[in-house]
């Protein structure tokens, strides 16, 4: 039985730990080189979630926390496929999202931005990929918001995503951006990704997924770390 070895992070597209333009990295980025180790049982496995973990409205942020009406903003559908670098779909894996509301305000208690909260929008959701690795969320397009990194700093519109994949080497937390956003050129978080990787973080407008008279469609695929052979060979 040969050992499956999962690929490392692809440094040509992954951000460096230290990117001084994003000031919070300065005292939080590890400074010593990472120590390369052989993957063992714990790294080659990871937590397993199932449909039983996900409530019927968890994937629909326009409905999952309404109190007295509908959330304000532009309804969107965000969908796509989760794959690994080998192009294999990753079925039944958990995706979690969180985001600002349409005014650019997070529900989070430390968000001090003076924009209104929306009583009908928490901005958190989750779903499982289906048997073919596909996922779909309904939500409200998040607004841009200011932050304190530098003078007149604004974060582009984005949705935070968290994925588990096949095992803990696959773990991914990232942010999805929208096409044509002028703030992308000024955002040190986005620009910390090497040029080759940047377009991988911008979703595509998808007229095919747009639901008539209801919601605009966007497509965003995920590619998690792959491995040196198909896992089936060792089963």
């Amino acid at each position, binding site marked *: 039985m040969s050992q499956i070895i999962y690929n*490392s*992070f*692809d440094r040509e597209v*992954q*951000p460096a*730990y230290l*990117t001084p333009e*994003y000031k*919070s*990295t300065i*005292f*939080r980025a*590890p*400074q*010593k080189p*990472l*120590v*390369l*180790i052989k993957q*063992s*049982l*714990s*790294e080659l*496995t990871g*937590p*397993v979630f199932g449909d039983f973990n996900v*409530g019927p409205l968890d994937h629909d942020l326009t409905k999952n*926390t309404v109190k007295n009406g509908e959330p304000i903003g532009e309804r969107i559908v965000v969908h796509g496929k989760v*794959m690994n*670098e*080998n*192009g294999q779909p990753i079925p039944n894996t*958990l995706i*979690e999202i*969180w985001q600002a509301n349409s005014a650019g305000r997070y*529900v*989070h*208690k*430390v*968000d001090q931005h003076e924009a209104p909260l929306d009583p009908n929008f*928490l*901005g*958190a959701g989750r779903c499982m990929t289906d048997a073919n690795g596909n996922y779909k969320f309904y939500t409200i397009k998040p607004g841009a918001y200011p932050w304190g990194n530098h003078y007149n700093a604004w974060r582009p519109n984005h949705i*935070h995503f*968290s994925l588990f994949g096949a095992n*803990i*080497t696959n*773990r*991914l*937390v*990232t*942010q999805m951006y929208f096409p044509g956003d002028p703030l992308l050129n000024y955002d040190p978080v986005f620009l910390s*990704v090497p040029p080759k*990787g*940047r377009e*991988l*973080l911008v979703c595509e407008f998808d007229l095919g997924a747009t639901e008539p008279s209801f919601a605009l469609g966007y497509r965003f*695929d995920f*590619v*998690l770390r792959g491995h040196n052979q198909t896992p089936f060979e060792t089963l």
Partner: protein
Amino acid sequence: MRQTPSQTVGPYFAYGLTPEQYIYDFKSLANNLMVNPLDHEEAITIMGKVFDGQGVVIPDALIEIWQNDGQNQLFGRFGTGTDAENRFIFHTIKPVSVNGQAPYVSVIIFMRGQQLHSYTRLYFSDETELNSKDEVLNVVPEDRRHTLIAKKKGNIYELNIYMQGDNETVFFDI
């Protein structure tokens, strides 16, 4: 196909990833009660703080731990923003040795200011013999091994994580 690049978890993950811990009205899928200590007399507590390069305790880190020793598969998730001392705290059981390796817990660290998460491991101070022979610990320079070994105090194992500095935690490329 190219990997999707990572981006920071940011400062506002709590209502999405750890909602119940931070008292938001949304169900949590994972928390720090990996076993209920009332049901497991062998239960242990793992805890510690995360420090930045200026020696300041980080109050907005998200810590995930995963352990699989072939017998138990346990996952925990906890943010450092709710404990009065900004500790991460997990209630779990100690993993057993697999194939002669020292028992360990995998640790994944996310925070504002980290564009890519960090991986480390937590080993146990009362496993001196297995630790001394462990293949992974022996790859780590001897003067840095202590950054991975949680100190036992009763049923509590304590390990601080240092992002930078002389005691910088060993982070792994896995």
